[in-house]
């Protein structure tokens, strides 16, 4: 494409900083050429108005818009591109990518793509990282498209480039979330499988085990609700304890004394504690303080001296005389071994005469 004389009026009207164009934008060239060829009633004012409009659009878009000539030189660059380069138009005009300081591999890639567009007359698209002058390395999605001359040949290559860094990061984040959710679901299904299998393993009658499976699943579901409210960042122990109490008490608020400071447990530990407290509640209803009117359960917790752990005490009072169980069921396994394993702490059951006492040690921080 031949460079045409610069149209002063257009450039100064739109971008006063560009006062010394040596090449005109191809839009002008094409329009002028087309008009020259096709019609004799060329209206310079109409053409000029149209160019002002195009220029306004090209300068307003955050996308990078540019044109290469057939020698791969920039003959147009909008403000977004100049800003990205940190260059003035005078500085950039007529230069190739390599001359503008692009890495050789990058310049060569665009050279190949430009040649491809010239040879095929078809657009080409790609994405590439590039250092923005002020924003650092960004990911750019670009398309080079042929500008077809009146003779049907490619006379220039117009390009449009979009910063897709945020979009790519968002997509990556979404993939991560979906992957994480899938992991959680699969893990939860494995937990449900275990609850069902192990409840049935220790069961003698089907109605009882159905009831146990149901209430264990509901306890698990409650723990999930609490975690969901906190975006699965963690759960407050108060909420975990309250939920366990709410699930098992027939007289809300009357049978439990609950107190302790705010302690945020990460999801896995929160679930483990919720399941353990559920087993304690179930046991209290069946054999302990909640099996008779007037029995009470105290749940109190406190930090130890250096805040490295939390001690939680479950203590039943006012129930029937306590006798230690003769065999260990799934519930007590869950309480003792399960808590120890999942919390990295300890759980101790004392079948004291006036009521069960269970002490749970929860170390804080990373195991």
């Amino acid at each position, binding site marked *: 494409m031949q460079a045409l004389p610069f149209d002063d009026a257009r450039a100064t009207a739109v971008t006063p900083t560009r006062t010394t164009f040596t090449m005109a934008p191809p839009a002008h060239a094409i329009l002028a050429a087309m008009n020259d060829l096709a019609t004799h009633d060329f209206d310079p004012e109409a053409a000029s108005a149209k160019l002002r409009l195009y220029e306004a659009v090209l300068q307003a878009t955050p996308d990078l818009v540019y044109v290469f000539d057939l020698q791969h030189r920039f003959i147009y660059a909008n403000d977004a591109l100049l800003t990205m380069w940190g260059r003035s138009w005078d500085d950039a005009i007529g230069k190739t990518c390599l001359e503008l300081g692009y890495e050789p591999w990058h310049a060569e890639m665009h050279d190949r793509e430009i040649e491809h567009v010239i040879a095929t007359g078809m657009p080409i698209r790609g994405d590439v990282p590039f250092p923005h002058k002020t924003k650092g390395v960004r990911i750019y999605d670009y398309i080079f498209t042929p500008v077809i001359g009146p003779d049907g040949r490619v006379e220039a290559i117009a390009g449009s480039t979009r910063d897709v860094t945020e979009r790519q990061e968002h997509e990556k984040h979404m993939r991560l979330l979906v992957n994480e959710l899938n992991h959680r679901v699969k893990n939860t299904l494995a937990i449900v499988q275990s609850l069902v299998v192990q409840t049935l393993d220790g069961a003698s009658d089907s109605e009882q085990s159905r009831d146990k499976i149901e209430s264990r699943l509901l306890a698990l579901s409650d723990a999930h609700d609490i975690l969901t409210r906190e975006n699965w960042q963690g759960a407050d122990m108060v909420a975990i304890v309250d939920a366990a109490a709410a699930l098992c008490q027939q007289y809300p608020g009357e049978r439990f004394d609950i107190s302790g400071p705010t302690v945020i447990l990460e999801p896995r530990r929160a679930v483990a504690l919720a*399941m353990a407290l559920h087993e304690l509640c179930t046991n209290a209803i069946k054999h302990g303080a909640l099996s008779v009117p007037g029995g009470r359960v105290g749940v109190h917790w406190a930090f130890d001296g250096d805040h490295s752990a939390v001690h939680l005490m479950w203590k039943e009072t006012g129930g029937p005389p306590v006798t230690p169980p003769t065999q260990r069921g799934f519930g007590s396994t869950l309480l003792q071994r399960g808590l120890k394993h999942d919390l990295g702490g300890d759980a101790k059951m004392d079948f004291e005469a006036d009521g069960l006492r269970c002490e749970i040690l929860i170390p804080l921080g990373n195991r």
Partner: protein
Amino acid sequence: MAVRVLIVEDEFLIASMLEAHLVRLGYEVPPIAATVDEALAALDDNEIQLAVVDINLAGTASFPVADALRARSIPFVFTTGYGETGVPEPYRAFPIVQKPYRISKLEPILRGLRGEGPV
């Protein structure tokens, strides 16, 4: 002598189900390891012949355990709730079981790892 299988799994419920199953089948199961450190200590303290290793231990990858098992030539199977995409290249050669898995399907894999045929 009973074959000793180390279970490396952060979720007690999942580990205990597997443990109960393996014990029923006559395997010996030392204390379940919940963390990489516990697993490495278990390898030092016990004569382990097989292992079932969860890839994600409370957010920490268990690959150091896999390395230690490989160094000791102890065959093992990975379990994971993530797809196989979560497994880096050097570990893809090891058998992987996706959670949840049919508990009865695991033992034949363990037998296969020991070069034993079906029962």
